[in-house]
């Protein structure tokens, strides 16, 4: 599909055009960037390094009502999920992550909530010109300008955004905003490629994944696990902020007679996650839980869905309060193999 340019001055207008849709975009809350619905006069910031909390919530909200009911009745009401959503400016890794969780949510039985939301959501990505300190997307099959999972890709060319539709949904979106866009010439195309090449070069950290998915199970009792997990706090930071983590809990919440069953993000780093009521816990310590996290991403998921469930966004490493560094763990894994 043809490439186009959007003058940065027209950006607010572009956002404004998407009326009737729920538009999500990165915004600053003063200290940090986060994806949030765009309200009036709100400043969308595209010049950012990655939000702390990934935009996975657009398809898989942190808390989602599965259905409502009244106590005492067995009639349930399902959510309509008919709102059109546009996510603006998400990074290629986050978009790619959605394709990864997609596999699980459609494995055998479709997860209706994810699927419905996905149908209604258009993802407009923004290529990275300045990758972050701990980005290693290129090691796990992504890249600063990767388009997998996106409907539209944008790139910051300075004065203009380079804009290109990648899917029909993306095309429809650009059609709606056609009058704000101009056709891109070859130069623009080249400039975009140059920038992404440069961005790739700027990525300093990397992991070596060859042999890892097959090899990990063999390291079950390796001393590396107690070593790398000793300082883990068992907080959910790494998983909550991971764009490919998809685990959830289901709870019934009641308020008088009104009640709902909802699901919310859960984390395999929590001890309750696998705890049986009897007190038995198949993963009793942080060692087992850390091992599961790494294995799940780099081995089990590959085994089931043929893809590594890590997009190299570096969040877990950036935000782990005790410097548990997935890149370092993988280095040690590799060493132990």
């Amino acid at each position: 599909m043809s490439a186009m340019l959007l003058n940065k001055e027209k950006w607010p207008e572009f956002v404004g055009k998407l009326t009737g849709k729920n538009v999500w975009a990165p915004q600053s809350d003063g200290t940090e960037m986060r994806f949030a619905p765009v309200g009036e006069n709100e400043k969308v910031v595209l010049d950012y390094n990655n939000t702390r909390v990934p935009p996975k919530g657009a398809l898989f909200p942190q808390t989602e009502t599965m259905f409502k009911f009244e106590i005492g009745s067995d009639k349930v009401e399902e959510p309509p999920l008919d709102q059109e959503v546009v996510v603006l400016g998400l990074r290629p890794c986050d978009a790619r992550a959605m394709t990864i969780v997609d596999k699980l949510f459609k494995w055998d039985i479709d997860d209706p909530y994810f699927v419905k939301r996905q149908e209604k959501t258009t993802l407009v990505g923004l290529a990275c010109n300045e990758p972050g300190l701990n980005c290693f997307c290129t090691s796990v099959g992504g890249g600063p300008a990767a388009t997998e999972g996106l409907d539209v890709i944008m790139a910051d060319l300075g004065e203009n955004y380079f804009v290109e539709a990648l899917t029909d949904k993306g095309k429809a979106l650009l059609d709606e905003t056609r009058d704000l866009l101009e056709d891109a010439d070859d130069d623009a195309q080249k400039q975009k490629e140059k920038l992404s090449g440069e961005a790739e070069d700027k990525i300093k950290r990397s992991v070596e994944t060859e042999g890892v998915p097959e090899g990990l199970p063999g390291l079950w009792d390796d001393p590396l696990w107690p070593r790398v997990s000793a300082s883990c706090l068992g907080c959910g930071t790494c998983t909550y902020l991971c764009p490919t983590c998809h685990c959830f809990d289901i709870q019934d919440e009641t308020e008088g007679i009104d009640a709902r069953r909802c699901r919310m993000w859960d984390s395999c780093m929590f001890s309750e996650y696998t705890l049986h009521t009897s007190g038995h816990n198949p993963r009793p310590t942080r060692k087992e839980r850390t091992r599961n996290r790494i294995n799940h991403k780099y081995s089990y998921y590959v085994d089931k869905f043929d893809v590594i469930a890590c997009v190299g966004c570096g969040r877990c490493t950036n935000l782990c309060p005790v410097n548990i560094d997935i890149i370092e763990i993988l280095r040690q894994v590799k060493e132990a193999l």
Partner: protein
Amino acid sequence: MTEKPKVGVYVCHCGINISSTVDVDAVAEFAEKLPNVKVARTYSYMCSDPGQVLIKKDIEEHGLNRIVVASCSPRMHEPTFRKAIADAGVNPYFLEMANIREQCSWVHEEIEEGTAKAKKLLTASVAKVRLLEALEQKEVDAEPAALVIGAGIAGIQSALDIADAGFQVYLVEKTPSVGGRMAQLDKTFPTLDCSACILTPKMVDAANHPNIELLTYSEVEEVKGFIGNFDVKVRKKARYVDFDKCTGCGDCAKECRVKDRFPNEFDQGLSKRSAIYLPFPQAVPAKFTIDPDNCLFLKKGKCGKNPKCQEVCGTEAIDFEQEDEFVEFRVGAIIVATGFDPFNPSRKPEYGYDDYPNVITGMEMERLVSASGPTEGKVKVFNGEEEIEPKEVALIKCVGSRDESVGNEYCSRVCCMYVAKQAHLIRDKLPDANIRIYYMDVRAFGKGFEEFYDRVRRENVRYIRGNPSEIFKRGNKLVVKVEDTLTSTPLEDEVDMVVLGVGLEPRADMRGVMELLRLSQSPDKFFLEAHPKLRPVDTATDGVFLAGCAQGPKDIPDTVAQAKGAAASAMIPLARGKVPINAQVAIVNEATCRGCAFCVSICPYSAIEMVTVNRFGNEVEVARVNEALCKGCGSCAAACLSDSIQPKSFRDSQILPQIAALGVMK
């Protein structure tokens, strides 16, 4: 095994007490739709026999296993309904009461309001009752002994009754002698028998009874434990006189260097005593006591060359080295018989009690007319200039009673009669005197009272209805300013003497006992009984009973009657030898307890201790509750950060749904 909760809801009309402000039928109808409610009914008097039968029948017919009674305060009828459902085979702790009378119908006016609130309260009760747990009533041994605090007539009588029944009694009296106020009285209405004559034998009995350990000049310092097992510590104040050596001869008092310098408490200060003294001639025990505040030697460390008393005491009983002693013992029940204080008329300055020596109180009058009193029974007053035999005598009733301005709204119940009695006694001694009594009402409600009142009136005692507003001096006369409200005539009555018929007040020092035993005060500030009608001698603290004027003003017959009642009640645990312990005790979840011992430092009954348990091969410390000690206050639970300790029936899991029910139902 988990049973599905099947709740029966019983909404009481309480005659019209509830139903006039709460639409009880609407409430019951509403209740029927609440989760787990099987039946909801109303009845005119739920607590009555047919009311209880109704519940029992429903339990049988509908297989109910939880009961909610929406009626009066659980403080009133919880035991009643607990028993009723237990009779029907349901665990008595599967009961919850919604207080829709005291806290609803009686305090709200609009029926909409009342009904709406009743529904809410009921919703909360139903929410809770579903989550209650079955509890078991356990018992512990009770110590077959009693403590009686205060040895006025009430205390003496209780002690004698309990001792006669064969139980050990510790009778603790604050002052050096037993007897209390009654010992100060001259003759007693309405029969006019001499107070000392009827009291002294009892005082002696109490002192000599093999089952009574008399602890005079003593105070209870500490009470720990609970019904059946109170651990008591008593301070025996130093008398500085060897109890065993003193023969009560009184030589010391006669020789005391500060002889007859200090107001004699027993004579209401109308006479003087020495620093070493016997409160009154018939005092029991007849042992002298040194008043440490006034004794030269004790105060200044020096009394002449040698303390005089020490010099003269033939048995060398004086012992300045003596120190307070402590006695500790365990009892199963406690009777509080600490009596009253006469109203201090200084608080009504318009009556000039502080200014004019010929304005005296009824209590002083008792001493004045007493043959053993300071004047040997002669009625004489000092009018400021000279001592005279009064010709014109006025007695004023209700001084300090039924008087909002001094904060006492209650009637003191004895003044009408003792004022009449004193008028009679004055008439006896001063046949020519003009005696009048100013009064608001005459309440001659007791046995023989009306007859006595009639008799006094016939003795030429004038009753003038009016509440004097002021007493002042004119010349050497006192002027009583008053309006005769029957004739609406303002009067300025000139008299030689005024007797203030002071009322009875709670003892100024009652706080100490209150705090020791966790008692409360009723609005009149006397000790609060558990129920004004049904449990008049019980208190909120199990095993602690009230006797005499400590609970409220009363005359001697009533005092004695109540003392006997308290004795009987106190003897129940002693005789059974066992007391049921609180079933709503705290319990620790050892799996989650983190061993911080916060609960241990909190528990006021030291009911929690840390124990070491084996948790999968690891030794860990966890809290454990001693059920016999726990009173179920739940303070521990609020302090436990991990909610590992919870009082049964008041668990978080039972209270939070109550909160939800009250909040959500807006």
